[in-house]
Protein backbone atom coordinates (compact mmCIF):
# COMPACT_ATOMS: atom_id res chain seq x y z
CA UNK A 1 0.00 0.00 0.00
CA UNK A 2 2.87 2.34 0.87
CA UNK A 3 4.37 2.01 -2.59
CA UNK A 4 0.99 2.72 -4.16
CA UNK A 5 0.60 5.93 -2.16
CA UNK A 6 4.16 7.00 -2.93
CA UNK A 7 3.57 6.34 -6.62
CA UNK A 8 0.36 8.38 -6.48
CA UNK A 9 2.11 11.30 -4.78
CA UNK A 10 4.97 11.26 -7.25
CA UNK A 11 2.78 10.77 -10.30
CA UNK A 12 0.65 13.78 -9.36
CA UNK A 13 3.72 15.91 -8.70
CA UNK A 14 5.12 14.92 -12.11
CA UNK A 15 1.76 15.64 -13.74
CA UNK A 16 1.60 19.12 -12.24
CA UNK A 17 5.19 19.90 -13.23
CA UNK A 18 4.67 18.67 -16.80
CA UNK A 19 1.36 20.52 -17.17
CA UNK A 20 2.80 23.75 -15.80
CA UNK A 21 6.07 23.50 -17.72
CA UNK A 22 4.27 22.77 -20.98
CA UNK A 23 1.84 25.67 -20.48
CA UNK A 24 4.73 28.04 -19.82
CA UNK A 25 6.04 27.39 -23.33
CA UNK A 26 3.01 29.13 -24.83
CA UNK A 27 1.16 31.22 -22.22
CA UNK A 28 -0.73 33.13 -24.92
CA UNK A 29 -2.67 30.08 -26.09
CA UNK A 30 -3.43 29.04 -22.50
CA UNK A 31 -4.62 32.60 -21.84
CA UNK A 32 -7.25 32.07 -24.53
CA UNK A 33 -8.49 29.06 -22.56
CA UNK A 34 -8.51 31.08 -19.34
CA UNK A 35 -10.67 33.66 -21.11
CA UNK A 36 -13.33 31.00 -21.68
CA UNK A 37 -13.92 30.80 -17.93
CA UNK A 38 -14.02 34.50 -17.18
CA UNK A 39 -17.51 35.86 -17.79
CA UNK A 40 -16.47 39.52 -17.86
CA UNK A 41 -14.29 41.27 -20.41
CA UNK A 42 -10.71 41.28 -19.18
CA UNK A 43 -7.67 42.95 -20.71
CA UNK A 44 -5.30 40.60 -22.54
CA UNK A 45 -2.28 41.38 -20.27
CA UNK A 46 -4.36 40.34 -17.27
CA UNK A 47 -5.32 37.08 -18.97
CA UNK A 48 -1.70 36.45 -19.88
CA UNK A 49 -0.61 37.15 -16.33
CA UNK A 50 -3.29 34.78 -15.04
CA UNK A 51 -2.15 32.09 -17.48
CA UNK A 52 1.47 32.46 -16.41
CA UNK A 53 0.37 32.51 -12.77
CA UNK A 54 -1.58 29.27 -13.10
CA UNK A 55 1.32 27.61 -14.94
CA UNK A 56 3.89 28.72 -12.39
CA UNK A 57 1.53 27.70 -9.59
CA UNK A 58 1.26 24.18 -11.00
CA UNK A 59 5.03 23.88 -11.30
CA UNK A 60 5.55 25.27 -7.79
CA UNK A 61 3.03 22.90 -6.17
CA UNK A 62 4.47 19.97 -8.13
CA UNK A 63 8.03 20.76 -7.12
CA UNK A 64 7.00 21.31 -3.49
CA UNK A 65 5.05 18.06 -3.44
CA UNK A 66 8.05 16.20 -4.85
CA UNK A 67 10.66 17.67 -2.55
CA UNK A 68 8.57 17.99 0.62
CA UNK A 69 6.54 14.78 0.62
CA UNK A 70 6.05 14.69 4.38
CA UNK A 71 3.93 17.84 4.43
CA UNK A 72 0.32 16.64 4.48
CA UNK A 73 -1.04 20.09 3.64
CA UNK A 74 0.57 19.77 0.20
CA UNK A 75 -1.29 16.52 -0.43
CA UNK A 76 -4.52 18.29 0.48
CA UNK A 77 -3.62 21.17 -1.84
CA UNK A 78 -2.90 18.74 -4.69
CA UNK A 79 -6.26 17.06 -4.03
CA UNK A 80 -7.97 20.45 -4.14
CA UNK A 81 -6.25 21.23 -7.44
CA UNK A 82 -7.34 17.86 -8.82
CA UNK A 83 -10.93 18.65 -7.78
CA UNK A 84 -10.57 22.01 -9.55
CA UNK A 85 -9.48 20.08 -12.65
CA UNK A 86 -12.70 18.07 -12.47
CA UNK A 87 -14.77 21.23 -12.09
CA UNK A 88 -13.02 22.96 -15.00
CA UNK A 89 -13.35 19.86 -17.20
CA UNK A 90 -17.03 19.57 -16.38
CA UNK A 91 -17.66 23.27 -17.06
CA UNK A 92 -15.65 23.04 -20.27
CA UNK A 93 -17.63 19.99 -21.32
CA UNK A 94 -20.88 21.76 -20.54
CA UNK A 95 -20.16 25.15 -22.09
CA UNK A 96 -17.17 24.82 -24.44
CA UNK A 97 -17.40 21.27 -25.72
CA UNK A 98 -14.84 20.46 -28.39
CA UNK A 99 -12.64 23.47 -27.65
CA UNK A 100 -9.00 22.81 -26.88
CA UNK A 101 -8.37 22.80 -23.12
CA UNK A 102 -4.60 23.25 -23.40
CA UNK A 103 -4.23 21.45 -20.09
CA UNK A 104 -0.73 20.47 -21.22
CA UNK A 105 -0.15 23.51 -23.38
CA UNK A 106 0.65 22.36 -26.88
CA UNK A 107 2.13 19.08 -25.68
CA UNK A 108 -1.11 17.16 -26.15
CA UNK A 109 -4.13 18.27 -28.12
CA UNK A 110 -6.71 17.63 -25.40
CA UNK A 111 -10.24 18.96 -25.77
CA UNK A 112 -13.13 19.57 -23.44
CA UNK A 113 -14.98 16.28 -23.84
CA UNK A 114 -16.40 13.45 -21.76
CA UNK A 115 -13.06 11.63 -21.76
CA UNK A 116 -11.48 14.77 -20.34
CA UNK A 117 -13.93 14.82 -17.45
CA UNK A 118 -13.20 11.14 -16.83
CA UNK A 119 -9.44 11.76 -16.91
CA UNK A 120 -9.82 14.56 -14.38
CA UNK A 121 -11.90 12.30 -12.16
CA UNK A 122 -9.18 9.65 -12.32
CA UNK A 123 -6.58 12.27 -11.39
CA UNK A 124 -8.75 13.31 -8.45
CA UNK A 125 -9.00 9.65 -7.45
CA UNK A 126 -5.23 9.32 -7.53
CA UNK A 127 -4.96 12.51 -5.47
CA UNK A 128 -7.32 10.91 -2.93
CA UNK A 129 -5.06 7.84 -2.76
CA UNK A 130 -2.09 10.17 -2.15
CA UNK A 131 -3.91 11.46 0.95
CA UNK A 132 -3.63 8.07 2.63
CA UNK A 133 -1.23 8.15 5.55
CA UNK A 134 2.10 6.41 5.06
CA UNK A 135 4.83 5.78 7.57
CA UNK A 136 6.91 8.87 8.25
CA UNK A 137 10.08 6.87 7.59
CA UNK A 138 9.13 6.40 3.95
CA UNK A 139 8.90 10.14 3.44
CA UNK A 140 12.02 11.21 5.28
CA UNK A 141 14.50 12.92 3.00
CA UNK A 142 18.00 14.11 3.76
CA UNK A 143 19.49 17.17 2.10
CA UNK A 144 21.11 15.16 -0.69
CA UNK A 145 17.86 13.44 -1.60
CA UNK A 146 16.04 16.76 -1.60
CA UNK A 147 18.61 18.32 -3.93
CA UNK A 148 18.40 15.25 -6.17
CA UNK A 149 14.62 15.52 -6.36
CA UNK A 150 14.82 19.26 -6.97
CA UNK A 151 17.18 18.60 -9.88
CA UNK A 152 14.81 15.93 -11.23
CA UNK A 153 11.91 18.39 -10.98
CA UNK A 154 13.95 21.02 -12.80
CA UNK A 155 14.82 18.55 -15.53
CA UNK A 156 11.18 17.56 -15.84
CA UNK A 157 10.06 21.19 -16.15
CA UNK A 158 12.69 21.86 -18.78
CA UNK A 159 11.79 18.69 -20.71
CA UNK A 160 8.08 19.57 -20.69
CA UNK A 161 8.77 23.16 -21.71
CA UNK A 162 11.09 22.11 -24.54
CA UNK A 163 8.83 19.34 -25.79
CA UNK A 164 5.79 21.62 -25.82
CA UNK A 165 7.74 24.35 -27.58
CA UNK A 166 9.03 21.93 -30.20
CA UNK A 167 5.57 20.54 -30.84
CA UNK A 168 3.63 23.73 -30.56
CA UNK A 169 5.34 26.33 -32.69
CA UNK A 170 3.65 25.04 -35.81
CA UNK A 171 0.22 25.82 -34.45
CA UNK A 172 0.72 29.54 -34.90
CA UNK A 173 -1.25 31.05 -37.74
CA UNK A 174 0.60 31.17 -41.01
CA UNK A 175 1.39 34.73 -42.04
CA UNK A 176 -0.48 35.59 -45.20
CA UNK A 177 0.91 37.16 -48.33
CA UNK A 178 -1.26 39.62 -50.20
CA UNK A 179 -1.43 40.44 -53.86
CA UNK A 180 -0.29 43.88 -54.98
Amino acid at each position, binding site marked *: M*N*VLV*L*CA*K*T*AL*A*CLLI*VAGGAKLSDPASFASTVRLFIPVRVAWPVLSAAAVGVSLGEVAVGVAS*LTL*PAITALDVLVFAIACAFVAVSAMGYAFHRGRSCRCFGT*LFQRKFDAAGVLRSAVIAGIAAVALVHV*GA*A*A*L*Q*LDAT*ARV*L*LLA*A*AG*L*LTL*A*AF*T*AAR*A*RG*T*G*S*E*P*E*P*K*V*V*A*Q
Partner: protein
Amino acid sequence: MILASSFVVVALVLCMATVLALFGVTHVSMSGAEAIERDGLAPGVHAPVWSLVDSAGKVVRSPPPTPLQLVMFTDHSLKAFPSVVDGLREVMAQELLEIVVLTRQRNELAESVLRSIGLDGISVLTGSPSLYAAYNVRVTPFAIFVDSAGRVRASSLVNEAWQVTKLLQLADLPLEQENLAPRGRFRRRTAGAGV
Protein backbone atom coordinates in the same frame (compact mmCIF):
# COMPACT_ATOMS: atom_id res chain seq x y z
CA MET B 1 16.96 2.33 5.51
CA ILE B 2 15.18 0.77 2.54
CA LEU B 3 11.87 2.23 3.75
CA ALA B 4 13.43 5.65 4.27
CA SER B 5 14.69 5.89 0.71
CA SER B 6 11.62 4.40 -0.96
CA PHE B 7 10.06 7.78 -1.83
CA VAL B 8 13.30 9.01 -3.41
CA VAL B 9 13.59 5.86 -5.52
CA VAL B 10 9.96 5.93 -6.64
CA ALA B 11 10.11 9.67 -7.36
CA LEU B 12 13.35 9.51 -9.32
CA VAL B 13 12.21 6.51 -11.36
CA LEU B 14 8.90 8.19 -12.22
CA CYS B 15 10.59 11.50 -13.04
CA MET B 16 13.07 9.84 -15.37
CA ALA B 17 10.33 7.75 -16.97
CA THR B 18 8.32 10.93 -17.57
CA VAL B 19 11.30 12.73 -19.10
CA LEU B 20 11.96 9.76 -21.41
CA ALA B 21 8.28 9.58 -22.34
CA LEU B 22 8.29 13.30 -23.19
CA PHE B 23 11.34 12.88 -25.41
CA GLY B 24 9.79 9.81 -27.05
CA VAL B 25 6.48 11.52 -27.78
CA THR B 26 8.25 14.61 -29.12
CA HIS B 27 10.64 12.57 -31.26
CA VAL B 28 7.80 10.59 -32.81
CA SER B 29 5.68 13.68 -33.44
CA MET B 30 8.58 15.56 -35.02
CA SER B 31 9.54 12.70 -37.33
CA GLY B 32 6.21 12.61 -39.13
CA ALA B 33 5.37 14.12 -42.50
CA GLU B 34 3.21 16.79 -40.88
CA ALA B 35 6.16 17.97 -38.79
CA ILE B 36 8.45 18.11 -41.83
CA GLU B 37 5.85 20.28 -43.57
CA ARG B 38 6.45 22.83 -40.80
CA ASP B 39 10.19 23.02 -41.50
CA GLY B 40 11.65 26.26 -42.76
CA LEU B 41 10.83 29.78 -41.66
CA ALA B 42 7.60 31.72 -41.96
CA PRO B 43 7.47 34.63 -44.42
CA GLY B 44 8.28 37.91 -42.73
CA VAL B 45 10.73 36.65 -40.13
CA HIS B 46 14.39 37.62 -40.27
CA ALA B 47 16.59 35.02 -41.92
CA PRO B 48 20.00 34.23 -40.44
CA VAL B 49 22.73 36.68 -41.41
CA TRP B 50 25.90 35.14 -42.80
CA SER B 51 28.82 35.70 -45.10
CA LEU B 52 30.49 32.74 -46.83
CA VAL B 53 33.14 32.33 -49.48
CA ASP B 54 32.55 30.02 -52.45
CA SER B 55 35.18 27.91 -54.21
CA ALA B 56 36.05 30.80 -56.55
CA GLY B 57 36.79 33.07 -53.60
CA LYS B 58 33.65 35.14 -54.10
CA VAL B 59 32.09 36.41 -50.90
CA VAL B 60 28.37 35.68 -50.74
CA ARG B 61 26.22 37.40 -48.14
CA SER B 62 22.78 36.98 -46.80
CA PRO B 63 20.83 39.31 -46.81
CA PRO B 64 21.81 39.79 -50.43
CA PRO B 65 22.64 42.99 -52.32
CA THR B 66 20.08 41.90 -54.94
CA PRO B 67 16.33 42.23 -54.28
CA LEU B 68 15.93 38.48 -53.79
CA GLN B 69 18.15 35.57 -52.88
CA LEU B 70 17.19 31.93 -53.27
CA VAL B 71 19.03 29.77 -50.76
CA MET B 72 18.85 26.16 -51.92
CA PHE B 73 19.56 23.70 -49.14
CA THR B 74 20.93 20.73 -51.02
CA ASP B 75 24.11 19.05 -52.25
CA HIS B 76 25.08 16.63 -55.05
CA SER B 77 21.91 14.65 -54.32
CA LEU B 78 19.99 17.35 -56.20
CA LYS B 79 20.84 15.30 -59.28
CA ALA B 80 18.14 12.87 -58.15
CA PHE B 81 15.54 15.66 -58.51
CA PRO B 82 15.67 16.55 -62.23
CA SER B 83 12.43 18.48 -62.03
CA VAL B 84 13.84 20.75 -59.30
CA VAL B 85 16.93 21.29 -61.45
CA ASP B 86 14.63 22.32 -64.32
CA GLY B 87 12.87 24.73 -61.99
CA LEU B 88 16.17 26.25 -60.90
CA ARG B 89 17.28 26.66 -64.51
CA GLU B 90 13.99 28.45 -65.17
CA VAL B 91 14.38 30.92 -62.30
CA MET B 92 18.09 31.44 -63.02
CA ALA B 93 16.95 33.64 -65.91
CA GLN B 94 15.66 36.20 -63.40
CA GLU B 95 18.08 39.11 -63.37
CA LEU B 96 17.31 40.35 -59.88
CA LEU B 97 17.57 36.96 -58.22
CA GLU B 98 20.72 35.53 -56.69
CA ILE B 99 20.74 31.76 -56.28
CA VAL B 100 23.10 30.01 -53.90
CA VAL B 101 23.42 26.37 -52.93
CA LEU B 102 24.14 25.82 -49.27
CA THR B 103 25.43 22.39 -48.28
CA ARG B 104 25.04 21.03 -44.77
CA GLN B 105 28.76 20.27 -44.55
CA ARG B 106 31.88 20.20 -46.71
CA ASN B 107 30.99 18.28 -49.86
CA GLU B 108 33.62 17.78 -52.55
CA LEU B 109 31.11 16.33 -55.01
CA ALA B 110 28.46 19.02 -54.82
CA GLU B 111 29.97 21.68 -57.04
CA SER B 112 31.13 19.37 -59.85
CA VAL B 113 27.82 17.50 -59.90
CA LEU B 114 25.80 20.73 -59.96
CA ARG B 115 27.95 22.07 -62.79
CA SER B 116 27.45 18.82 -64.72
CA ILE B 117 23.67 19.16 -64.54
CA GLY B 118 23.76 22.67 -65.94
CA LEU B 119 23.63 24.79 -62.81
CA ASP B 120 26.61 26.94 -63.77
CA GLY B 121 27.00 30.31 -62.17
CA ILE B 122 25.42 29.27 -58.90
CA SER B 123 27.65 29.72 -55.87
CA VAL B 124 28.07 26.52 -53.89
CA LEU B 125 28.70 27.34 -50.25
CA THR B 126 29.75 25.11 -47.40
CA GLY B 127 27.28 25.58 -44.61
CA SER B 128 27.00 23.78 -41.30
CA PRO B 129 24.43 21.78 -39.37
CA SER B 130 23.95 24.77 -37.08
CA LEU B 131 23.20 27.04 -40.05
CA TYR B 132 20.69 24.50 -41.32
CA ALA B 133 19.17 24.47 -37.84
CA ALA B 134 18.99 28.27 -37.86
CA TYR B 135 16.87 28.01 -40.99
CA ASN B 136 14.94 25.12 -39.42
CA VAL B 137 15.78 22.86 -42.36
CA ARG B 138 16.10 19.14 -41.87
CA VAL B 139 15.12 17.63 -45.21
CA THR B 140 16.54 18.59 -48.61
CA PRO B 141 16.13 19.93 -51.25
CA PHE B 142 14.68 22.92 -49.44
CA ALA B 143 14.26 26.42 -50.88
CA ILE B 144 14.10 29.67 -48.94
CA PHE B 145 13.78 33.08 -50.57
CA VAL B 146 15.29 35.98 -48.64
CA ASP B 147 14.91 39.64 -49.60
CA SER B 148 17.51 42.38 -49.34
CA ALA B 149 16.10 43.42 -45.95
CA GLY B 150 16.93 39.95 -44.66
CA ARG B 151 13.33 38.80 -44.36
CA VAL B 152 12.12 35.40 -45.47
CA ARG B 153 9.72 35.77 -48.40
CA ALA B 154 8.93 32.14 -49.19
CA SER B 155 10.06 28.78 -47.86
CA SER B 156 9.30 25.19 -48.74
CA LEU B 157 10.55 21.72 -49.38
CA VAL B 158 10.71 21.34 -53.17
CA ASN B 159 10.40 18.25 -55.33
CA GLU B 160 9.07 19.66 -58.60
CA ALA B 161 9.89 22.53 -60.95
CA TRP B 162 6.53 24.22 -60.47
CA GLN B 163 7.17 24.49 -56.73
CA VAL B 164 10.33 26.52 -57.36
CA THR B 165 8.58 28.89 -59.76
CA LYS B 166 5.53 29.17 -57.49
CA LEU B 167 7.78 30.04 -54.56
CA LEU B 168 9.39 32.76 -56.63
CA GLN B 169 5.93 34.18 -57.39
CA LEU B 170 5.07 34.12 -53.68
CA ALA B 171 8.40 35.73 -52.83
CA ASP B 172 7.60 38.60 -55.17
CA LEU B 173 4.40 39.42 -53.29
CA PRO B 174 4.64 42.08 -50.57
CA LEU B 175 4.29 41.07 -46.96
CA GLU B 176 1.49 42.35 -44.77
CA GLN B 177 2.65 44.74 -42.06
CA GLU B 178 1.48 42.38 -39.33
CA ASN B 179 3.81 39.68 -40.60
CA LEU B 180 6.92 41.77 -40.16
CA ALA B 181 8.19 40.04 -37.06
CA PRO B 182 10.85 41.72 -34.92
CA ARG B 183 14.40 40.44 -35.30
CA GLY B 184 15.21 37.37 -33.30
CA ARG B 185 11.71 36.01 -33.16
CA PHE B 186 11.79 32.42 -34.35
CA ARG B 187 8.60 31.42 -36.03
CA ARG B 188 7.97 28.22 -37.85
CA ARG B 189 5.54 27.55 -40.60
CA THR B 190 2.25 25.76 -40.21
CA ALA B 191 1.69 22.32 -41.62
CA GLY B 192 0.42 22.36 -45.16
CA ALA B 193 1.80 25.82 -45.78
CA GLY B 194 4.26 24.68 -48.44
CA VAL B 195 3.65 25.03 -52.13
